[in-house]
């Protein structure tokens, strides 16, 4: 069974097929329903916050910032209390797709690496999971900006 080449041998291919067949089916329907419900609820809560901030003097345009900030704060607190991950195992994308997931990824990484100190640990690892989101978002925005400049 020794194989130094990168190409898949027939034995390997057969086994991989067998292994794939053994994977228990993911509960896609249940997960999707929960993701929809929880994600929807978090966004509804966000809408409530937006309306509250508008009553407190923010305009429709500027109410978005404090709304997101409050959601991020709540997400960090729940992560700090150790309950966010338990909730997320159950709710899946319902908690990771809203901005709460982004905050959780940064907060959890910061907390985890506190034992390595503030500079290398917290500072150096905070963007471990969230970094990809920021990098890809920025690069995409750059190219879209250029395309817009050239064609719009």
């Amino acid at each position, binding site marked *: 069974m*020794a194989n130094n080449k990168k190409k898949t041998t027939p034995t390997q291919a057969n*086994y*991989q097929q067998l292994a794939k067949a053994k994977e228990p089916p993911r509960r896609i329907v249940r997960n999707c329903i929960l993701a929809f419900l929880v994600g929807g609820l978090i966004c509804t809560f966000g809408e409530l916050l937006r309306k509250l901030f508008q009553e407190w003097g923010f305009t429709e345009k500027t109410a978005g910032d404090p709304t997101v900030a409050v959601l991020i704060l709540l997400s960090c607190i729940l992560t700090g209390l150790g309950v966010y991950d338990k909730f997320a195992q159950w709710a899946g994308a319902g908690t990771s797709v809203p901005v709460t997931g982004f905050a959780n990824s940064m907060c959890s990484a910061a907390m985890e690496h506190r034992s390595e100190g503030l500079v290398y640990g917290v500072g150096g690892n905070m963007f471990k*999971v969230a970094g990809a989101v920021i990098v890809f978002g920025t690069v995409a925005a750059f190219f879209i900006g250029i395309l817009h400049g050239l064609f719009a």
Partner: protein
Amino acid sequence: MLQGKQSWRFDSPPVILGYASVVGPEEGKGPLKNEFDLIHEDMRLGQKSWELAEQQFLEQAITRAVEKSGIDQNAVNVYVGGDLMNQITSTSFVARTVGLPYLGVFGACSTSMESLAVAAQLISSGAAHYAIAGTCSHNCTAEKQFRYPTEYGSQKPPTAQFTVTGGGASVLGASGSGPRIKGATIGKIVDMGIKDPFNMGAAMAPAAVDTITRHLQDFQLEPSYYDLIITGDLAEIGHSLARDLFAENQVPIDQTVFSDCGLLIFDREKQQVQAGGSGCGCCATVTYGHLLNRMNRGELKRILVVATGALLSPLSYQQGESIPCIAHAVAIEAEGGGN
């Protein structure tokens, strides 16, 4: 003594003079809760980091195993061990405390049997009068190093496994009272091209089957020779695949009880462990607790413990490499002959 192609036969079988297992809260709630020497309710054990806590589990297992063996720790000639951490720091730091000549080994989750085989060989060849073999793992250090921060909210797929928090160790001697190590089979790397680190069972099953098959060939045995052949942490998916592979290769594994430590240590219905347990500590705590206890109670006479390891790193996975795996087997028989 070389037996066959890649096995060792111990004509004067080393004796397991003492063994111990120290586990965390989740393991302490599982079906084997009465078989461990010590269960801790807190995974952090009051330490400043998960890594320091993992060291405590191992250190306590070694101390307890030495106590139970009745020999003086200073009489031990060598300590063989390893773990999952980068550069096996958990074991090295414990070796510093223990203060014995030390051989660090890395076999990922196969370390328990790799270290036991090496320690047994040192005893059998006369290179040591007494040896300690031990390993540990910790759910949080494994998650932190291999997957995501522990408080990160990601959903684990049903093929994922739950790393055991626990340390297991044994003290071996050339003679004395206790279960005997009759032989071992050193595995070779088997890589069937599985790339998914959340499905280790599937990656490791071929290695387990390869080593067990080789062991039976080297020693010219049928599976029925053993009361129990048990793998380290194939868990639900890997165990099922192993059975299929045995059937395909016409190895009559059903002649005996074929089980897996990762399936025994947790109650998959009640505990959120997806496919089952994994980690160096899985095979170690189940062997140095449940299995040897059963042997001492007379329930088992001859067992083959086959620890399985997935030899990937977070880097190799990110670079798109598949997962090379290995399995090491140790044959243990009850005192008074395996009859």
